[in-house]
């Protein structure tokens, strides 16, 4: 079976894309918060500066022809409430400084207006934000222009801005992490029907070709119905080939049996030895064909069942009893004694009983076939960490046949003389052993002449 090479994970793609979205949103959040907050901080300072400048402008009055100012306490103290920034002010009447910091720059070009004008400038080594308001004051019958500038450094603002940036960063990062975690969770959740489906399909037994009926999300319906129709076709094909094997066995064996019967009738009626010989040859050929057909079909069946091995717990003792019972009539014909040696304790192996029977039968069949009459065959079960079944006969043994080749298809030994066979028996036994994770060991009977063939299977 070829291994599928995955080309990336849907979940990872989903998570990465969602994380990118979350990162973009976090960034947007960060910049928005910073912009808005800094704007708000600047506005706050501007508002206080404007209030201060306005209250100073309001406190300007005329007295005896002179312009005077009673600087309100709150005008400066209110600026001290938001931060520990430096504060400057200057009041100018018709271009003459009335009071305050005489070097504080002032925008003289402006018209008399009570709406404050804001500026940011460099003054006494610091960045200063100023608000300028002006008003007119009538002194005597003259109208005079009063300009009030109030300035404050922006260190408090900078501190606020740093604090906001830190908070916005923390919140942004937190949001990003949280959103990423959530998207990982969401991806997991969204893909869970897919995983469930994959699991339920993977968990199926080899012969379970029923359609998938689990609840399926809309997106997976085409896949699942495609899978179902594929399985239906596969099931049909399998049924057909099973039928074909059974059919073929029947179709070939039945006519061959008829041919053999007829040939034997003819053989009995023949008188001339030459003709009788020919007919015996013919019968033999029919036997070979029939044997070959049977073994071929058995082998095909074994191959088919091994591909989708369906195991169950089997008692090997029972299995051996059946096989020996089945073959003992053949053995009796040759006066061969089958000695079945079984241990007392119970144990089980897991496997396909039909396959295992087939394997054991083929090995025992060989032992009977290749042994002379009036001998003994020992079938013994030795459980240890594996289940080992030895078939020991006193026949001709493997002589110098190439033991490794005997399990190949259609390979027969040089020792077979006229014994009918197709050369598939050991192939079948070997295939079955392998399909069950075991092995076939071909050897010599070490208490004398004869063969010893062992089927070694793992315990369940």
């Amino acid at each position, binding site marked *: 079976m070829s291994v599928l090479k995955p080309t990336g994970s849907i979940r990872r793609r989903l998570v990465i894309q969602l994380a990118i979205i979350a990162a973009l949103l976090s960034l947007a959040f960060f910049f928005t918060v910073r912009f808005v907050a800094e704007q708000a901080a600047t506005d706050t300072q501007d508002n206080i500066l404007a209030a201060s400048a306005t209250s100073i402008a309001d406190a300007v009055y005329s007295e005896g022809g002179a312009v005077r100012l009673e600087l309100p*306490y709150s005008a400066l103290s209110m600026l001290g409430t938001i931060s520990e920034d430096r*504060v400057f002010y200057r009041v100018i009447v018709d271009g003459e400084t009335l009071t305050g910091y005489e070097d504080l720059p002032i925008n003289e070009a402006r018209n008399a207006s009570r709406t404050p004008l804001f500026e940011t400038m460099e003054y006494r080594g610091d960045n200063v934000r100023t608000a300028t308001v002006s008003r007119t004051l009538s002194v005597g019958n003259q109208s005079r222009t009063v300009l009030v500038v109030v300035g404050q450094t922006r260190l408090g603002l900078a501190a606020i801005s740093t604090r906001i940036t830190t908070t916005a960063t923390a919140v942004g990062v937190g949001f990003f992490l949280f959103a990423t975690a959530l998207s990982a969770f969401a991806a997991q959740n969204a893909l869970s029907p897919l995983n469930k489906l994959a699991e339920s399909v993977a968990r199926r037994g080899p012969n379970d070709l029923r359609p998938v009926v689990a609840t399926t999300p809309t997106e997976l319906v085409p896949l699942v119905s495609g899978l179902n129709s594929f399985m239906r076709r596969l099931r049909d094909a399998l049924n057909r080939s099973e039928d074909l094997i059974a059919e073929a066995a029947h179709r070939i064996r039945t006519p061959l049996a008829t041919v053999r019967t007829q040939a034997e009738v003819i053989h009995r009626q023949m008188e001339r030895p030459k003709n009788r010989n020919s007919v015996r040859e013919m019968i033999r050929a029919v036997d070979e064909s029939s044997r070959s057909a049977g073994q071929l079909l058995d082998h095909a069946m074994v191959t088919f069942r091994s591909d989708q091995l369906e195991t169950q717990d089997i008692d090997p003792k029972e299995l051996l009893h059946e096989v020996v019972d089945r073959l003992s009539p053949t053995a009796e014909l040759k006066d061969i004694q089958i000695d079945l040696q079984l241990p007392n304790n119970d144990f089980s192996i897991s496997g396909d009983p039909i396959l295992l029977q087939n394997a054991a039968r083929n090995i025992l069949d060989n032992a009977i076939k290749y042994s002379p009459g009036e001998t003994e065959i020992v079938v013994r079960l030795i459980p240890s960490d594996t289940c080992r079944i030895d078939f020991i006969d006193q026949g001709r043994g493997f002589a110098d046949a190439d033991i490794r080749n005997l399990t190949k298809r259609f390979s027969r030994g040089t020792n077979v003389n006229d014994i009918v066979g197709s050369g598939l028996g050991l192939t079948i036994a070997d295939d079955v052993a392998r399909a069950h994770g075991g092995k076939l060991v071909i050897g010599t009977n070490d208490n004398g002449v004869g063969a010893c063939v062992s089927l070694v299977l793992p315990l369940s």
Partner: protein
Amino acid sequence: MRIACIAFILILAFSPADAFEIEAKRSYASVEDGSMLSIISTADVEVFEPIIFEFQKRHPDIAIEYVVASSSEVMRALHDENASYDLGISSAMDLQTKLANDGFTRRYVSDATSLLPDWATWRDRVFAFTQERAVLVISESTFEELPIPSNREDLIELLREYPEIFDGRIGTYDVRTSGTGYLFATQDSRNTESFWRLTEVMGRLNTRLYCCSGAMLADVASGKLAFAYNVLDSYANSKLGDTPGIITVEMDDFVSVMLRTAIIPNTVKNYEAAGTMIDFLSELGNYPELVEQTGLPPVEARDSYESQSVRPIRLGPGLMVFLDKMRKESFLRSWVNSIEQR
């Protein structure tokens, strides 16, 4: 050029022809060789000396030159004349704040200063190390028969009732010359309606004006004055022991609390030693004997104030309002008009 300039300033600062006036000057040699710390301060030598001794015990390598001047002279030295001192100590919080606001001070941050309560520092440039209250100091003998006033209204009442007792026997700072007096008077004017009436009444009774607390306290003790208004409790308390016949009274409508502060002028030469002294002053509360000896109450957490009527003066730009030349002018004009009614 620069050196020449500094030298010139030095000559200005320490020659008798100084533009700013100093009241006293004392040098304290160091035990070990080391640096020189020059301090210009409003606190009298006797008040501050114990602090210097204790400081030098801990830092024997720092020699100290201690110059006493009035708060306005300290201001003139540091603000107008760029005189070179390593540390400016003044009871005039408003002037110290203005120095820091106008860029005449250096920033200083240390473990000790960061332990100070928020309200005791401003811009890491003005450091409060004492909190001193303005109290009424009365002559015990005069008030034997009279009820002791507990607020300004009572005081006004009392003055109106017994003009013959109090005529010519009231003392207060001359706010034109005393920075502390001006600070307290302006805060009073902010805090109570009674202030101007009280000044008025005091003016009618020929109130005597003093530049400094020392003389005022002496006159109360001798019975020449019936009471002195708005005297720093630190001075009064340090005098109480060896001056019989005076009592301090806290008004219960409100009590102004002034912070004595230190700054490092831009003209500092020994920044490190100045910082060391600020750290030492910030931890004044750790030396109870010193507090006892000087009578300077150290900075403590605000919660320790026992009543609502105690009003600490807040460091910040609000203090600069009464320094505005026009505001000061009109305040002084009103004050003089009230206090001098001849």
